[in-house]
């Protein structure tokens, strides 16, 4: 069986699943749904595995399947590309998805949507998501990638708003979609510019054109390439929740937990990273743009981590953690270490999915409670969950031997040593690592250790999740534990297997590597590398210990408040408020009268400040439309009507006035004579 020729089936099988679910799922029993939907993803996974294995056997490690033309003039075909990068991605996507589908059978089995039968709908959406995600990673051109790109956004919207009876869910979904669209606008423009530059949007052709030597490295100053790269990056910031477009992701936690795990942690949000990696030929040519990527990544990482320090909602901690980790990935990509970015993506997928699903299990056990302040002491009551979460937390904290350690440490090292990197960024990364360790373990301690703080009724209900949920957790835990060993730092010696990941991806990042090579190699000493590694391990352990000290040893009233910073962090650096102040209150004080017209209730409905500026502008536009544009039309109509009366009233009924006008007419003709000559 030639799996390589069948790669187009990988996305389409879940699509069929989605179709069956959404069209006929309503009448199906749950068992059938649980069979078809995960089954479809399972088939995808098998196909992916087969293709992946066959790809390994190929000389060139690249295989394209073109089904037919789509938008011809953009050279955007129904084309699918399997190369090492997409190979990794499909494995991650189908694998994690499959596990999460299984998990969801248990998780959603207890939950009903707002109307009976939400179960099938959930799986339909989830399958649809997998379809789009696979389209995204398997596309052989930017436009088809964009299909997936938008499609996953849609599914994200649908799934965030799955509990659509909740207003907050609807709001969050809309916010996600619109913020993503802002990014997409940049992405679209980036694509156009790329097309303009290279005459194609096919990955291979673009890459070939960029590396053909016709395009010089834009080392000094901004050029068209940098603009292109940055526009694409704007798209990535939207999808991957980077500053300033990260605001949607924390709110996205309104969705069911498996969704958070799958879409908002493991797969969709990494699309931006994937896309930047896919465009490495471009980014490599634009060091300044790459620096922007790195800086934004680093900033997002520390910023989100700092917020994560104080959140009390278990899923929100993980959400900010995700934002932070994505920042890491961009940091890596920005310094030119694309494979590391993908590597972190890979490991992160395991442990973040694990953590989210674990938290889901916790929430499940807690009858839906998400506030960590009402948890505690769950260690013994839900042991399996606790154990897998424990592994995940260690992994993300960067404890050596676990997946997170290898990838994160490689990022920090590359940041330090890459010609594009800088020591300042390294420091930021390190600080983030410390915070990560702290907040993750804060979460662990608040949840699983100490006294139970929940009410009696909830306490009574606490139970371990069924096997259908715990088994995927365990598989993921295993992945989190050992997944990093295929990317062991070279300082520990070079061995085919231990550097498998880097070598595997080499052909994809060859264009970037070529350019990077021109910067000149410099080899910092192994000693430095080992020293830094030790430093980061210490820092991670320090973070864990600090968390233990504060949240386990100290009583609640003894805990440091964090001073003035605490409320700042708790309120997410007041970004949402800042938007509010900037765009709403400022204006309301300035133009109070205009704002007075605003309906308070609709202000509440505003999702954030940007939307509000827009709405303000649109209100003005509407006012303008009603009173000025249409007003002019009506005004002229009014004038015609108004002029009609005097003309009618000329007819006074009095015949001599008519005669007078007659004579006046004659006079006017005479007048014309004088005027005319």
């Amino acid at each position, binding site marked *: 069986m030639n799996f390589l020729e069948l790669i187009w089936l990988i996305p389409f099988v879940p699509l069929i699943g989605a179709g069956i679910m959404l069209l006929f799922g309503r009448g199906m029993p749950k068992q059938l749904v649980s069979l078809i939907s995960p089954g479809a993803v399972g088939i995808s996974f098998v196909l992916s595995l087969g293709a992946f294995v066959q790809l390994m056997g190929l000389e060139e490690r690249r295989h394209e399947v073109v089904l037919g033309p789509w938008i011809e003039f953009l050279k955007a075909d129904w084309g699918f590309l399997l190369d090492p990068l997409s190979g990794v991605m499909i494995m991650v996507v189908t694998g994690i998805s499959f596990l999460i589908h299984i998990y969801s059978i248990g998780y959603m089995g207890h939950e009903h949507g707002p109307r009976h039968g939400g179960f099938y709908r959930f799986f339909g959406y989830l399958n649809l998501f997998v379809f789009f995600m696979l389209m995204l990673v398997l596309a052989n051109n930017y436009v088809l990638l964009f299909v997936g790109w938008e499609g996953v956004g849609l599914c994200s919207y649908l799934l965030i708003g799955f509990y659509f009876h909740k207003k907050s869910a609807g709001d969050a979904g809309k916010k996600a979609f619109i913020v993503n669209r802002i990014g997409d606008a940049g992405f679209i423009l980036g694509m156009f510019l790329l097309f303009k530059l290279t005459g194609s949007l096919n990955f291979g052709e673009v890459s070939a054109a960029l590396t053909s030597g016709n395009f010089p490295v834009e080392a000094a100053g901004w050029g068209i390439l940098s603009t292109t790269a940055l526009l694409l990056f704007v798209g990535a910031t939207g999808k991957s929740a980077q500053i300033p477009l990260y605001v949607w992701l924390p709110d996205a936690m309104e969705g069911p937990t498996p969704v958070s795990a799958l879409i908002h942690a493991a797969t969709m949000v990494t699309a931006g990273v994937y896309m930047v990696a896919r465009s490495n030929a471009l980014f490599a040519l634009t060091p300044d743009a790459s620096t922007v990527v790195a800086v934004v990544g680093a900033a997002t990482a520390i910023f989100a981590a700092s917020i994560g320090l104080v959140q009390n909602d278990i899923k929100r901690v993980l959400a900010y953690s995700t934002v932070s980790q994505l920042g890491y990935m961009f940091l890596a990509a920005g310094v030119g270490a694309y494979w590391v970015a993908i590597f972190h993506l890979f490991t992160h997928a395991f442990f973040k999915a694990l953590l989210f699903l674990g938290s889901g299990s916790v929430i499940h056990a807690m009858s839906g409670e998400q506030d960590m302040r009402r948890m505690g002491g769950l260690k013994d009551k839900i042991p399996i969950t606790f154990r897998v979460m424990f592994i995940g937390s260690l992994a993300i904290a960067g404890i050596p031997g676990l997946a997170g350690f290898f990838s994160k440490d490689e990022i920090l090292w590359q940041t330090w040593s890459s010609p594009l990197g800088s020591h300042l960024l390294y420091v930021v990364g390190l600080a983030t690592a410390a915070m990560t360790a702290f907040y993750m373990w804060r979460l662990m301690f608040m949840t699983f250790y100490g006294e139970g703080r929940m009410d009696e009724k909830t306490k009574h209900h606490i139970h371990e999740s069924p096997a259908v949920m715990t088994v995927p957790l365990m598989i993921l835990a295993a992945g989190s534990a050992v997944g990093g060993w295929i990317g062991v730092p070279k300082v520990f010696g070079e061995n085919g297997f231990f550097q498998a990941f880097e070598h595997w991806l080499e052909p994809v990042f060859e264009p970037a590597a070529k350019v990077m090579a021109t910067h000149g190699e410099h080899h910092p000493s192994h000693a430095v590398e080992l020293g830094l590694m030790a430093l980061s391990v210490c820092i991670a352990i320090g973070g864990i210990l600090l968390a233990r000290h504060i949240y386990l040893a100290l009583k609640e009233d003894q805990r440091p408040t964090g001073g003035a910073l605490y409320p700042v962090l708790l309120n997410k650096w007041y970004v949402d408020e800042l938007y509010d102040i900037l765009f709403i209150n400022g204006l309301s004080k300035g133009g109070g009268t205009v704002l007075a017209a605003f309906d308070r209730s609709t202000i509440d409905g505003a999702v954030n400040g940007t939307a509000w500026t827009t709405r303000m502008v649109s209100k003005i536009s509407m006012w303008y439309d009603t009173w000025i544009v249409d007003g002019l039309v009506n005004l002229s*109509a009014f004038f*015609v*009507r108004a*002029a*009609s*009366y005097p*003309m*009618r009233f*000329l*007819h006074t*009924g009095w*015949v001599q*006035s*008519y*005669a007078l*006008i*007659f004579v*006046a*007419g*004659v006079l*006017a*003709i*005479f007048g*014309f*004579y004088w005027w*005319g*000559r």
Partner: protein
Amino acid sequence: MSSFYTATDHFVLLPALLLALFACATLLFDFWVFPESQRRKHLVWFVLMGEVFASVAYFRQHLFLSQHGGELQAFGGSLVVDQFALYFHWIFVASTVIAVIMSYKYFEVRDEHHGEYYGLILLAQCGMYFLASGNELVVLFVGLETMALTFYVLVGLLKRDQRSNEAALKYFLLGALSSGLLVYGFSLLYGMSGSTKLSEIGAAVANRDSGDTVLFLAVATILSGLLFKIAAAPFHMWAPDTYEGAPTVVTAYLAVASKAASLALLLRILLGPLASSRDVWMPILAGAALLSMTIGNIAAVTQTNTKRLLAYSSINHAGYILLGVVAGNQTGIQGVLIYTMVYVVMTLGAFLVLTVLCRDTTTGEDINDLHGLMRRSPAHAIWMLIFLLSLAGIPPTAGFIGKYFIFLSLIETGHYWLAAAAAVYVAVAIYYYFRIVKSMFVDKEETEMPALSLSLGTRVALAATGAMTLGIGIYPEPFVKFAQQTLR
């Protein structure tokens, strides 16, 4: 001047003779020949017979002209029959026939009987005959007065109706003033040339330079008289009052026939003797046309009396017609001719519907009387819609063809701004025409009104005008050809 009354003279004058004869006969028969009970019906048939005879005479002239070409002069050049005159004669015949058919039912409803009415209508047509065929100032003047005097009487025909009296008086007073000025202008023309024949006047006028003040005075006075007759602003003031007060059938006849005849006169004079002083009258006409369209359209916007509304509409159409004269080239004149024919047909049609509406309970004059017409009598509503669309100039109705030629000629001669103004006013016009449409199709009548029943004659007339309106619009070729041939 060798012979007193030649065969040619007879041939040319015959239609007028026939008309006069039938007119006199009608007047006489009204007294004693026809039995009282069926008098009206017989009179109508008799008048129609007269029209048939006249038509035969016209047709013979037509045949003669198409065989021999050129024109026929009679009475030493006092009368002339050419295609131009014949064109208008046909219009007069058609409008008279329809007016007579309309009248039958109308006067029955208004409970007025005047046998004189039919005679007078024929006499008016006689006057028109001389307006279109006259080639000499005295003939034209006396013809004009014959027609005008007849109309004064016709307007005042509903003697018990104060409004009718008043309309007649107003029309009379203003008409007298205007014809006074007109004939004053004629006297100046005579003074300049020493002749009353248009051709000789033309020669004399051509010898004068365009800045000549006497010529200007003559043109100004003549134009004010003529513009009055075709109800162009600022000499239009009589029209709404007269249209409103007159019996609806007379209004219709006045709106079409009188206007067409006066237009024939206007064209005869402006394109004949005064052709060389085009620079003098063209701007005046342009101004009058613009003013007419403005006043006609804008004043109509808030008008609620349908007859007044149609009066404003006719002022507006006078403006469009004048634009064709302003353009003045072949296309323009052709446009004027086509427009006139179209105007006659569609205005008669519209008035026909209004006449039908006139019942014991309602005068049919207020726009509200049309409420729910679509439900009461769909056929009428649809015919009216077609007439209104045509009045507004929407294709594929006849009105569009008329406007098209006007636009064509204006652009051809470079009068872009006039064309644009004329175009914009089409939209304004739609506004008030569609108030009628709205009234017919959308509004519901407040009180139950009886369904309309129709006499055969009205049906035929309605069908004829409607068919013409649509026919000219959809297949204008023969009509355009006809107009072109007229000018050759």
